[in-house]
């Protein structure tokens, strides 16, 4: 296994005594993600780094793609394990340099040696100088300029107790924290653009995200269900298994339509959604709800209406998109590859019985009066009793 990936993390380094928890989770997440795709690999924690050795270099593309999707990975480099010998390093350095350079233009470069094996005779600076000088001698002092701050080519050398690894380019990872280190949350997934991005943002900060979807099948058919399942599957590339709870919502919407003030319908729908979601959340020891709410985007997302909805639950509701512009959300959804699926036409259930003028500032007293006309408890329980649960990923 001569091909070795050096995987770096950033914020985990700040986590003090709990650091090993984060590192172990990251190692596990990488293992789980790779297990599905490649057969032969070894993964190992060293001081401040993770080393991934593979036996089949043709897995390179798969590994690049996989590592780019794992939260907590700050950057990674593909390298080669080589003999601990200055002449071998000189050869390898030159090889890698030549592969990165077009051979003609003036190039800014540096050599970066990181030495965790302290009993090695030369220190890092000395090694950098020796290898840098070698490159200049070989390829010409008129073309090669040292630039420590912004090099175009960076040749790296890691010397640790296992031997030495030499590499050239680094690729940027997702950053953030390893999924699972922050605990479990429940995301209200609708099939639109926003909620998948909200789910992803929470995953990137270490949450394992499960989903809940409210379905009005009798009025809208199965297109939205199908879409939500596919969105959850796309999101599963960033985390391991998740549960998708599908709550039948037609009866509740009909009851609200039949009994309540029409201008309050959407806010009432959302109050039911929040209460049901909180019950599911509590059943599974989850630590919060996540929504794709975005201030002012639609009538139900004014400060007044968000408050009127939020008030029905005791849980913390995370709204990672609350202050973003639509374009930022669109850009994110393209990056995480949910965009194309999200924009497929399939109405979400909030559009059912949409009044001409929905309330933008629903009065909480009036909402409570409206809800007195419905057996809220029983309807919610029935919806939960008849829900379908899918495992995604």
């Amino acid at each position: 296994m001569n091909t070795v990936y050096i995987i770096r993390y950033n914020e985990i380094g700040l986590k003090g005594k709990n650091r090993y928890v984060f590192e172990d989770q990251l190692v596990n997440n990488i293992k789980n993600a790779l297990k599905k795709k490649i057969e032969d690999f070894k993964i190992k924690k060293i001081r401040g780094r993770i080393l991934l050795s593979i036996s089949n270099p043709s897995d390179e593309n798969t590994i690049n793609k996989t590592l780019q999707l794992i939260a907590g990975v700050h950057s990674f480099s593909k390298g080669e394990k080589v003999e601990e010998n200055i002449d071998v390093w000189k050869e390898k350095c030159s090889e890698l340099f030549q592969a990165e350079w077009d051979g003609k233009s003036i190039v800014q470069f540096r050599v970066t040696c990181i030495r965790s094996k302290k009993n090695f005779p030369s220190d890092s600076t000395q090694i950098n100088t020796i290898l840098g000088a070698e490159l200049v001698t070989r390829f010409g002092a008129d073309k090669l300029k040292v630039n420590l701050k912004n090099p175009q080519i960076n040749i790296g050398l890691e010397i640790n107790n296992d031997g030495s690894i030499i590499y050239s380019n680094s690729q940027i990872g997702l950053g953030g924290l390893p999924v699972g280190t922050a605990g479990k949350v429940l995301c209200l997934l609708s099939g639109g653009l926003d909620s998948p991005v909200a789910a992803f943002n929470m995953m990137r900060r270490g949450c394992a995200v499960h989903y809940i979807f409210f379905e009005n099948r009798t009025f809208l058919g199965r297109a939205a269900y199908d879409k939500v399942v596919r969105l959850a599957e796309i999101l599963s590339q960033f985390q391991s298994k998740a549960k998708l709870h599908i709550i039948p919502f037609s009866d509740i919407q009909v009851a609200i339509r039949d009994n309540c003030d029409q201008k309050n319908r959407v806010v009432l729908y959302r109050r039911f959604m929040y209460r049901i979601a909180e019950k599911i959340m509590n059943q599974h020891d989850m630590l919060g709800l996540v929504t794709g709410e975005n201030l002012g985007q639609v009538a139900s997302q004014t400060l007044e209406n968000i408050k009127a909805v939020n008030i029905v639950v005791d849980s913390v509701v995370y709204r990672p998109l609350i202050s973003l512009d639509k374009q930022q959300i669109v850009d994110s959804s393209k990056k995480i590859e949910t965009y194309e699926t999200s924009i497929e036409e399939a109405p979400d259930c909030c559009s059912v019985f949409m009044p001409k003028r929905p309330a933008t500032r629903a009065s909480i007293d009036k909402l409570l009066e409206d809800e007195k006309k419905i057996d809220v408890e029983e309807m919610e329980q029935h919806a939960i009793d008849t829900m379908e649960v899918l495992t995604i990923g």
Partner: protein
Amino acid sequence: MPLSQANIYLDHAATSPMTGDLIDRYIDYLKEYSYNSNTVYEPGLKAKQQLEKVRQNFASQLNVNKNDLIFTSGGTESNNMAIHCITQTLKSDKVIWYSKTAHPSLLNPILNLDDRWEKIPLPINKTGTLDFDSLKGLKPPDVIALEWVNSETGFIQNVSKLQDFIAENNINCHLIVDGVQGMSKCDMINLNKVTAFTFSGHKCGSPVGIGCTILKNSQRYSAMLHGGGQENGLRSGTNSVPLAMIFWDAFNKNQQTLANNEEVNWSLSKPSAIRHDANEYSPYIYILDTSPVEGEVLLHHLEEKGIFIGLGSACSASKKKISNTHKAIGLTEKQSRCTIRISFTPFTSHEEIEKAQQAISEEWESLNRFFS
């Protein structure tokens, strides 16, 4: 997903799913004849024999020259091929009369013809069918293209009368008829003055992926797809012999059932079918006026009961735009949303129709209050 006994499928104008006996037979054909019919060893030659037998069967049934029968991938390709082949042979400034209510696979190739073509929509009356009185005043055409049976409403364009009109007025033109929705469901029209006639397998119960263009004097035309020169050079690509065989079987099964069947009797009055006395209709396609209930909502409620029906046109169900046919018969955008399409096959039973009528009526009644 396989439909269960309890399901009722009434969207045969979109596609007619294969039935068990045909599936079994198709599997046998796949085992026996999955060879390239252009090869010269025995399995290939046997496949070729079968292909030619099917071609002969269709040709005899439709009373056309077997060399003018070209297998394609389906209705869309057949319509495109007909428009392409015929318009390509006519070089200078030309006139085409076309039906605005035609399926997009016929309409769009016409609308995409270059500016040398003057495109004149056929005059239609308020019910969507040809207005023969207004035809005379039009600039004489080189090509006329229209559908036989309208896919969204089931009205029948009077192709025979149109052929008489062409003869009486000494018009020298090519007539292209999209026969997809009429084939094996309505009494066959006379193809005397028809240059191109198209139809599709999956509307008759064969798998999706095969269709046919009848192109009279086909040797005159040049191909749309070039390649190995199959189908007399007009449609290159290796033939699927098993598909062609099952295409004939499905078609033939429909024909025979049709001959022994009483006509479909759709008698529901609420919601009512949109039928005009002045028109002739296919007994296999009905458009129902479901107002004030939105067709899609009714569709999903019926889906919950295991009954599958169509919206105005399956091809435009996902687009929220009003279809040309709906516009032509005078429906507003709102009225158009309040329609469903019911379509049968000769095998649809009276019992299924009864049950569907009852369910549609009940669901429609119970949904009314949500839309008033």
